[in-house]
C-alpha cells in the first residue's frame, strides 16, 4: 500500500445519504477476478445521466468525494473501494460510514473522514467552485477560505496509512502469539480448534 499523507484537489459535492454499495458498484461488475478497471462501473446508474457530477468537467478525476450519512452501507464488496480508487478518489468525507466500507477503504489506502453535517454542508458549498485539502498528520480538512475542520481517526489506522503498512505482513510477524492461542484453544475449546468432519 502506498503511504498517504494528504489529499488535495477538487471534491465532488455528492451529498447523498445511505449510498449503498450496489450504487457504488452494481453486482454485475463483481464478476471480475482482478482489482482493476472497476472505475468504469463506479456509480453506473447515476452516470447513465449525461449531466452527472462524476463526469462533469469540474469533477472528473477529483480525488475527494463528499457524501451524506451512512456512506457505503450494504454489501461487504471491496469492489466498492477498488472502484473509487480506479475513479481517482482517495478520500471520502461524510458524517458516517458503514463499518465494513470504512475498513475496506482503509485497507486500500482510501481515507474516510468523519465530519459533522454542518461541516459537510459548508464543504459542499466550497466544493462547487474551489478545492479542499485534507492533511492526515494534523487530522484537518481546510479550504482556501480559512475553514478548518478537525477529524478523529483511529491511531492504528492513521499509522498504517501514513506508513503504507502491509497488515498481513504485520500480523504474520505475530506468529508465535497466534500459535500460543491455538495451543490454548486446543485445550479449552477443542471442538472449535478443528474444523474436520466429525464421525
Amino acid at each position: 500500500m502506498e503511504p498517504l499523507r494528504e489529499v488535495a484537489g477538487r471534491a465532488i459535492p455528492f451529498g447523498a445519504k445511505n449510498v449503498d454499495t450496489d450504487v457504488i458498484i452494481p453486482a454485475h461488475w463483481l464478476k471480475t477476478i482482478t482489482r482493476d478497471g472497476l472505475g468504469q462501473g463506479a456509480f453506473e446508474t447515476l452516470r447513465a445521466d449525461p449531466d452527472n457530477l462524476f463526469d462533469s468537467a469540474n469533477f472528473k478525476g477529483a480525488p475527494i468525494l463528499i457524501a451524506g450519512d451512512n456512506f457505503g452501507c450494504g454489501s461487504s464488496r471491496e469492489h466498492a473501494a477498488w472502484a473509487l480508487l480506479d475513479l481517482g478518489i482517495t478520500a471520502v468525507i461524510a458524517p458516517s460510514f458503514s463499518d465494513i466500507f470504512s475498513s475496506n477503504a482503509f485497507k486500500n489506502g482510501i481515507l474516510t473522514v468523519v465530519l459533522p453535517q454542518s461541516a459537510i454542508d459548508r464543504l459542499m458549498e466550497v466544493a462547487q467552485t474551489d478545492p479542499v485539502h485534507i492533511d492526515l498528520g494534523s487530522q484537518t480538512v481546510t479550504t482556501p477560505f480559512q475553514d478548518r475542520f478537525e477529524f478523529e481517526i483511529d491511531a492504528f489506522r492513521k499509522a498504517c496509512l501514513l506508513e503504507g503498512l502491509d497488515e498481513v505482513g504485520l500480523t504474520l510477524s505475530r506468529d508465535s502469539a497466534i500459535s500460543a492461542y491455538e495451543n490454548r484453544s486446543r485445550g479449552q475449546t477443542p471442538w472449535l480448534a478443528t474444523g474436520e468432519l466429525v464421525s
Partner: protein
Amino acid sequence: MASKPRTLYEKIWDAHVVERRDDDTCLIYIDRHLVHEVTSPQAFEALRLAGRTVRRPDLTLAVPDHNLPTTARRDAAGLPIPIADLESAQQLAALTRNAPEFGIRLIGDADAEQGIVHVVGPEQGFSLPGATIVCGDSHTACHGGLGALAFGIGTSEVEHVLATQTLLLKQSKAMEVRVEGELGPGVSAKDVVLHITGVLRASGGTGYVIEYTGSAIRDLSVEGRLTISNMAIEHGARAGLIAPDEVTFAYVKGRPYAPKGAEWDAAVTWWRTLATDPGASYDKVVVIDAADIAPSVTWGTSPEDVLPITGFVPAPESFADPSKQDAARKSLAYMGLMAGQKLTDIEVQNVFIGSCTNSRIEDLRAAAAVLKGRTKAANVRWAIAVPGSGLVKRQAEAEGLDQIFLAAGFEWREPGCSACLAMNPDKVPAGERCASTSNRNFVGRQGPGARTHLLSPAMAAAAAVTGRLADVRELS
C-alpha cells in the same frame, strides 16, 4: 473476586483475543471461515503473489453460490452444463482451482450439500455457538442466530484471515434490541427484522454489535433466529447475536461438523455460560413490543422504508429530515409509486422466494402453506422458489412442497443466491416489481431498473396468488 458481568458479545470477544495492542486494537482469532467465489479470487491471487499459504485450511470451507445458475447443472449423462455467462464461469472456475491449490475443502456446484454459504454453514454444523465466523459477505451476521460472533469482511480481510486465521479489530459497542411479547398471526421472523430495521433506520446499528433478546426472539426456532440475525447489516450492525439455548443445542446436535461424544458435552457446558450475565450493561437498549409488529413490506429503496401491509405509501413531506424527504422522492420515482397509494393496491409481476434470509425449510413450508390449493395470479409473470441448499431442496421434495410450488405456477430451482442480487441469470426486468423474500431493495439490486418489495415467505406467497402486495392474514 466476582468478575464483572459481561454480555454475550463480550464473552465471545474475550475468548478470542490473541493479543491486545496498546491502542486497544485486538488480534482476534477466527474459528470458521466461509469462502465463496465472488470476494475471494483477489485474496487468493494476493497470497500467490506474496508466496503465502493458508494457515488453517481445516477451518475454511469454500462453497460457490452467487454466480451459479439455478437451472440444471448436469445434463442427462451427468456432465456439467456450461455456464453461458463467461465472466461468471471464470469466477466459479477460479474457486474450483484455488480451493484445492490452497488445501481448502470445496463443496462443488453439483454436490447435494451445495447451497448459499449462510445456509450451508449452520446446516453442516460448521457454524457453531460461541465461534467467531467470517465470510466475504455482509450477510454473515446470519450465523449469529446460533450465538456465534459472525460478520462480513472485505477481500483484504479474507486474505488476512486466510494467511493468519486472525483479524485486527477494535471492539464494537454493544446494543440490545429486546422484542417482548407474542407475535401475532401471520407475523414471522422476517416481519420482526423488517420492523426492527424501520425502527433503527439503515444506520442505527453502525458501530454496534446487536444482541436480539426478549421473549419474542426466544420463542423463535433457530431458522427464524437466523433470519433475524441475517439482516443485522440492514440496520447497520456488522454482527447480530442471539444467545444460544436448548433450542440451539437441539438444532446443532448430530450435524456433520458438530462436536460429538465427550466434546459435545463439553461444548454444551461452555455454550451454557455464554448468555449475557444479569447486570451486564449495553451501550444502547431498544425495546420493541411484539404486538406492534404486523406483516410488513418495504415501499422504497432502503430496507428502512418499511411499513405494515395495512399502510399507505408515505408522502416525502411526511419525513422531518430534508435529506430523507429527498431520498423518499427519488425512491418513489424509482419505484413508480404515488404518495397515499394503498400498499395492497400495488401489483407485482414477479415473486422470488429464496436468499440467505429466507430459503430454509421452514420458509418454504410457510410459503407452501399459503400456496396450497391456489395458483399464481394471471399478472404474475415469473415466480421462482430457490431452496437455500441441496439438502433443503431434498427435504422439501420429500415433504411434497415442490409439487405445491409447481402446481401454483412457481418454478422450482437449484440452490444459490439467485435473484437476491441477480449476479446469475435470475433477474427482474426493468420497471417490473418483485415481491421478494431477500434482504435488500436497493436501486438495481435485482437487475437494472427492478423494483423490489421485501417481505416474508408467507407474504410473498400471498402476493403471488393475489397478484399484488397482500395481507397474508386475509388469505389463511
